[in-house]
């Protein structure tokens, strides 16, 4: 039912729409250049889909013949808008997706990249479309409790698989910088630079928290691949299993507790946790059992606070882009995060 609804609402073609026509022309040129042996190349069903706070999504099917046979492939183009919540690098995301193809991690196969946007109007990736539905709150949906709990564990298994990726062996260190033990400081540097770029007004709350984060950052025990925005809202679920993890635009090398801090963050509990069944202690216990690594509570809380602080900076990026006229979603000052962060810091200081 939900799937049919998504098809009906999200894939409405806009026949005669000038933007669609222009995109169809650009796409055909772009793909033809990448498939020189292709004959009878046809793109069908091109439609811009709803949703996505950080990227334009266009779905279509491509069919062609070549010496290898006949192909008919569902694809998605994800194109950078003029402004958004995140400023990220398509080349890095493409490298991550290509590397993941040889791993068990469920990620969409990436076919082509327009790195500088010279062909498609702005930097873009074309990926194979994977079946499944996206539901930010799937863990607290109307599915039976046992199914939701199994899905929660499935999410954790996926997180562990990502952390087990042999990023050196796959050559990912050529595309992503290994911060080594300084992973926490490197993330603070990255997001502080973003804060300085986008803040439209003084935000002493974020200065207080940043200072605390700087003073309490700990060295990473080892380096893993970090998704950077690991959440059900970035996954597709097919039946009762996760079919793919999407949105690798903030993937980087970093601390193993970073993604764990994101999903145990109390502010996002409705997305990541199931009250009474799958809460912070359950997640940490399952993570430790799956990885064999113990989790230091204080260190995890540091990453919880960091998650909120980073999210606050992302919200300010959205506000900056809205005011600049390059983003269509209105956000307000992230005061709900301020209270959560200061409460967590206060608890840590009172220990």
């Amino acid at each position, binding site marked *: 039912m939900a*799937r049919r609804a*998504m*098809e*009906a*609402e*999200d*894939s*409405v073609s*806009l026949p005669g729409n000038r933007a669609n026509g222009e995109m169809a022309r650009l796409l055909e040129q772009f793909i033809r250049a990448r498939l020189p042996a292709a004959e009878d190349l046809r793109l069908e069903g091109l*439609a*811009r*889909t*709803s*949703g*996505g*706070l950080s990227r334009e*999504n266009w*779905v279509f*099917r491509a069919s062609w013949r070549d010496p290898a046979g006949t192909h*008919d492939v*569902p694809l*998605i183009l994800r194109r950078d808008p003029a402004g958004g919540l995140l400023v990220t690098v398509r080349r890095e995301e493409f490298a991550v997706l290509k590397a993941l193809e040889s791993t068990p991690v469920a990620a969409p196969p990436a076919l082509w990249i327009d790195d500088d946007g010279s062909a498609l109007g702005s930097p873009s990736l074309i990926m194979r*479309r*994977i*079946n*499944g*539905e*996206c539901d*930010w709150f799937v863990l607290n949906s109307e599915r039976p409790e046992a199914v939701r709990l199994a899905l929660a564990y499935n999410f954790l298994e996926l997180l562990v698989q990502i952390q087990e990726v042999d990023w050196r062996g796959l050559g990912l260190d050529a595309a992503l910088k290994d911060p080594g033990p300084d992973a926490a400081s490197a993330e603070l540097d990255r997001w502080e630079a973003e804060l300085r770029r986008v803040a439209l*007004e*003084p*935000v*002493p*709350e974020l*200065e*207080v928290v940043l*200072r*605390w984060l700087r*003073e309490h950052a700990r060295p990473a025990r080892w380096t893993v691949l970090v998704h950077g925005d690991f959440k059900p*809202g*970035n996954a*597709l679920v097919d039946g009762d299993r996760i079919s793919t993890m*999407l949105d690798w635009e903030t993937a980087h090398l970093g601390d193993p507790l970073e993604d764990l801090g994101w999903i145990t963050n109390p502010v996002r509990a409705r997305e990541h946790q199931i009250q009474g069944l799958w809460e912070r202690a359950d997640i940490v216990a399952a993570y430790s059992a799956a990885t064999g690594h113990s989790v230091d509570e204080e260190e995890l809380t540091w990453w919880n606070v960091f998650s909120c602080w980073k999210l606050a900076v992302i*919200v300010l990026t959205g506000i900056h882009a809205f005011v600049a006229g390059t983003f*269509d*979603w*209105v*956000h*307000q*000052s*992230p*005061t*709900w995060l*301020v*209270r959560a962060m*200061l*409460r967590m810091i*206060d608890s840590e200081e009172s220990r």
Partner: protein
Amino acid sequence: MRPTIGEQLDGTCRVLEAVVAPEVAGTPAADVLNGLVKNLRMLRTNWPAVLPFLHWDNETTAAVLMRSASSVPDHLARRIETLDADPTPDILDVVAAQERNDELRALLSEAVLAMDTASAAHADIVAHLVARAGRYPLRSVPAVPRPHPAPDPSC
């Protein structure tokens, strides 16, 4: 003063929902429109609280800064001590109140980084920031788009 600001915001929402929304149904613009209307409704409810909030925050921030003066370096303390001498903006001027707020919060940002985090002054500032977050009149309205592609039946 009719239509009042509230009446104008209500009417704008009604027109957007009744006239514009049907024309863009099923397109990405529908999600954007939904988000904008939700935000307008939030503004319709909360805008009258903005000016009183700014006055409360300006007064409280100035008081917190004055109490912190002995906990910060001299050059900062001197700037804080001049706060009393600054002219009070017209209390009905929202823009002036906003500018004063930016000025005070910029000073607060400097002060809070310059003091011992274990000091009473630091705790005083943090308590003020928590209270401010609780009183802040404008709220983000959840308008989560359906983020990902339509499934392909043949996948």
